[in-house]
């Protein structure tokens, strides 16, 4: 086993063993500590995966996926299932983001377990299981394995919402589970459509179409795209999201928005576009129109929204619209914009949900009508909320800018009446995004303090700052040095598009 393969296994094994350890430690606080340590240990191999030589060596025509490290073991020989993992410039930033956000969430749980009945120990264990599922999804290079990891996430996330969520949590959790399960069914059918037609489930071999007939590709892309559209979520398949976010505990929302949605966009790029390029080209205009509809509709709904967490949840619909627009252009610029938009959204919306949770915990309400004047009573919290909102509305110089602006640039580059119109509408959506975030800030932070906000003290707990500061710094760092994310992505994206064209 090489060093890289060891890292690949370690990234998955550490949180999995951590979850087991948490379950066996009897005392609650000690168990949470063990879980946090495990999450911290998982971050190490995740980061190390990206360090080192990234050249690809091989013979014959270069494939569309050129992993830096890979591990390919037979798993169920009878069914020709393989345990095939690999990492490259497209997946690595997401892997690191996942490991980081899980660590921050576990650390946060060390300080505060959300009210609602469940023990902190179980919450940490579930967070670690979710982490294993998400990381596995990003690392899998076998379609069946991808599907399995994709599904591992579902039930623990259901349990997190249903166990530690708000007043209406059971309904929201049920809707989340059933709706995304519906997407998973389509994913399963799509995966087997491809596997049956191609005779292999190896993503490396399949990328580029691998001799699939046009009709198979169209069918497979439709199935896979709808499945991933549910997860991303793409309008109009988004309606599970607001309920789940509003009811989920803070850490649940952070993981959900920060990385869970990224499984959809990642799957779209890696699996759907890679495996069925013909279908992707065919469906690109539809995808683009839906993405722009998501941007506009998401922003307008936010503009009329009156609950803090719900507003942020809907903002995700708009932001993922920009990511999907980037993917839909099927250009290098667009895919790179999608990748950095993905990461930026994970960082910024993660931060926004942390802050919204902090506001709700203190004021005991999330209704915008009952919140005002936060900058008078808690200037630091208001300042951080302002920073996150400004980052999220795509201020140049912060992380959110690159994904949004270059999705527009990519659409302009694509040219033609359709894509130019889409670019204009997406840019208008950017202005609407500013409108609703400014409205949010005006309602929550400005003015005289409302009775609910008057109770809020100015202090922030050290644990809160520990959880938020890395995200603030990352939003700034990715904004100023976008090569942090994109530096390694150029090669893989070009390789992918080479075989797709």
């Amino acid at each position: 086993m090489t060093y890289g393969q060891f890292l690949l296994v370690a990234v998955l094994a550490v949180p999995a063993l951590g979850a087991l350890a948490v379950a066996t430690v009897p005392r609650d606080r000690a168990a949470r500590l063990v879980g946090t340590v495990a999450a911290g240990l998982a971050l190490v191999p995740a980061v190390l995966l990206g360090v080192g030589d990234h050249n690809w060596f091989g013979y014959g025509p270069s494939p569309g996926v050129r992993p830096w490290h890979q591990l390919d073991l037979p798993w169920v020989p009878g069914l020709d299932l393989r345990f095939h993992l690999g990492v490259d410039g497209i997946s690595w930033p997401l892997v690191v983001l996942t490991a980081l956000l899980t660590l921050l969430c576990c650390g946060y749980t060390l300080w505060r377990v959300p009210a609602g009945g469940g023990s902190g120990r179980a919450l940490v264990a579930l967070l670690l299981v979710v982490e294993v599922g998400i990381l596995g999804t990003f690392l899998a290079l076998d379609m069946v394995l991808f599907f399995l990891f994709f599904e591992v996430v579902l039930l623990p996330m259901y349990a997190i919402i249903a166990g530690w969520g708000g007043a209406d949590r059971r309904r929201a959790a049920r809707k989340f589970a059933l709706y995304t399960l519906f997407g998973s069914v389509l994913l399963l059918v799509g995966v087997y459509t491809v596997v049956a037609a191609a005779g292999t489930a190896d993503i490396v071999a399949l990328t580029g179409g691998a001799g699939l007939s046009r009709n198979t590709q169209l069918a497979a892309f439709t199935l896979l795209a709808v499945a991933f559209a549910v997860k991303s979520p793409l309008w109009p398949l988004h309606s599970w999201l607001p309920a789940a976010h509003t009811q989920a505990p803070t850490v649940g929302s952070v993981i959900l928005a920060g990385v869970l949605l990224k499984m959809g966009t990642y799957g779209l790029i890696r699996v759907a576009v890679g495996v069925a390029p013909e279908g992707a080209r065919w469906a690109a205009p539809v995808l683009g129109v839906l993405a722009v509809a998501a941007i506009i509709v998401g922003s307008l709904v936010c503009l009329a929204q009156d609950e803090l967490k719900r507003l942020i949840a809907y903002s995700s619909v708009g932001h993922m619209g920009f990511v999907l627009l980037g993917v839909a252009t099927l250009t290098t610029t667009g895919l790179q914009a999608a990748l950095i938009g993905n990461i930026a959204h994970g960082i910024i919306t993660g931060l926004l949900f942390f802050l919204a949770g902090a506001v709700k915990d203190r004021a005991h309400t999330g209704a915008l009508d009952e919140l005002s004047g936060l900058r008078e009573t808690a200037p630091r919290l208001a300042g951080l909320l302002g920073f996150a909102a400004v980052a999220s509305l795509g201020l140049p110089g912060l992380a959110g800018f690159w994904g949004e602006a270059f999705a527009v640039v990519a659409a302009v580059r694509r040219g033609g009446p359709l894509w130019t119109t889409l670019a204009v509408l997406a840019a208008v959506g950017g202005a609407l995004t500013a409108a609703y975030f400014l409205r949010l800030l005006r309602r929550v932070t400005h003015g005289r303090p409302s009775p609910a906000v008057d109770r809020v003290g100015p202090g922030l707990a050290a644990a809160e700052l520990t959880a938020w500061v890395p995200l603030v710094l990352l939003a700034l760092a990715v904004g100023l040095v976008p090569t942090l994310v994109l530096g390694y992505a150029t090669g893989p994206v070009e390789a992918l598009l080479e075989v797709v064209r």
Partner: protein
Amino acid sequence: MSATTLLGALLPVVPLAAALVGLLLPPDGGVGRERSRRTAAGLGVAGAAVALLVAVALLVTLDRPVEASTTWVDLGGLAVTLGVRLDGAAALVAVAVTAVALAVQVYSIGYLRRGPHDDVDVDHRYPPYAAQITLFTAAMLLVVVSGDLILLLVGWEVMGLCSYLLIAHDRRLPGAPAAAMKAFLVTRVGDVGFLLGIALLGVSAGSFRIADVLAHDHSTGMLTAACLLLLAGVAGKSAQFPLHTWLPDAMAGPTPISALIHAATMVAAGVYAVTRLYPLFVQAPVALAVLGVMAAITLLLGAFAATAQDDIKRVLAWSTVSQIGYMTGALAVGSPSAALFHLLTHAAFKALLFLAAGAVIHGVGTTLMSRMGGLRTTMPVTFWCTAVGLGALAGVPPLAGFWSKEGVLAAAESAALDGTGPTPAWVGWLVWLAGLLGVAVTAWYATRLLLRTFFGATRIPLAHPHDPPAVMRWPVLLLAVPAALLGLAGFDHGFAHRLLFPTVPVLPPGEALLVHLAPALLVPVALLLLGAGLAWAGWRRDPAADPARALGPLRPVFARAFRLDDVQHALVVRPVTALATVVRTGDEVVVDGVVEGSGRGAYRLGGGLAALHRAALPRAAVAVLAGALLIGLAAVLIGAGA
């Protein structure tokens, strides 16, 4: 990297560093309030002072345009660079920006101190305020030196953010948050166009570096579209019709902030950005013609709106709108150097006017001119400084504004009469005539402001106004110097040479092209005397009454700036809000309704089927038999078929 480019790079980096440190200071102070306030003020002043030194050093060392850049990020073959592009104009504007910023930082120390009119719980939260000014300065300097369109956009939008933060700073004004939001949002709407314009240019040139964009041979249609789109952003930032509505409302910000926004940053950025890309605009005369029409409308709109305001800051705000109209007018008739010259003199006299107005407001505790009057004797320093500023604004020779405005008018005249501009002659006529009319109106409202504030009898007998303390007096006094004399720099060969656009060939020796001494100079002077004389005559008849009463029925229309705010509200704000409500309802009822409905439908279907299965024994037995019969029948039929 040469020393010059290093200076250029340091220009935004120094204040940025100071701003980031300043933002980390405790915002409300608490126990160590006075100490954190001192630290913040020191940091702000130091940041601006060092930036000013860097800018001056740059101005001195820069002998020819230089450029340096390094790749920032490469997105699919579109290069985004981190780089500076330095020329004489950039260095001069940088000096103006940093000088005004320094004056504002020093002045703010005195202005944002708890005064006798404040109630007990006022807390000015100085550290974030000072840091935001510094960030604002850094952003503007980034726009000034940037050699890349995306980098320029960074500074451009960070300025929008800083204006938002600073306008909302004063927590005692209930209108401030709304004004701040309006400022950010209106400029952001313009920036939709700006981003698309940049995208078009970048995609066409394959790079966002300004040098590459200028060197590329763009197709005419694309160029016209891109320039028109860029103008939307310029209109937003530089408060040009129809996106000018945010600027007067922005008066809710503290007065030093108004000075900063109006004089050196923000509104200057739009004009400056056009001069940066001027070779492109020259190739797109349609865009320049649109700019000329916009300029003429804005120029007169702002001037007329200024005549009827009672709030001293709003008079100045509308005068800014009008003066920026002169600058964009100069751009439209093909004279970026005249625009930049006016930009520089305007920076001096408008900063002076706002800071002096701040002293007045500080002294009498109100912004309304109807409650001032007779301050000449009690506030002599402020009076003389305001007089110099207003003289420069109106264009009294030999003050700064006279020469620069004359440069604009001369450019428009020659475009109108000789067709020298890049646009058709009618654009020249439009700008020229609007500019001349604007001179008279400007003189009228400047005279009115001076008379209403400083002459006549006092209308607030109880107050004891006096000149401001030294920390506020000195910035005002020092700004009066360039406001008075900067116009004469137009005769200086070196100064003119820096402002003249690189496209202008070698200057004939001995000729200063920024200033024209010709008989045509007498026309604006005559119009100036006419406007000032009318205002004086109106005031003379009844010194207690407002000369604006002469406007008659037009007065309320001018006071509300032709009710364009209402138009904007009716045409944009309300439809978007209504649409948002409709879309939200549609999303919740229709899109989610289908989902919930399918869930409920499945549940009901299941319930129905379950009810069918809960049957009594006879019916169940019949059903089983019927089923068996059906299967048997099917088996027989299929068997027979096979």
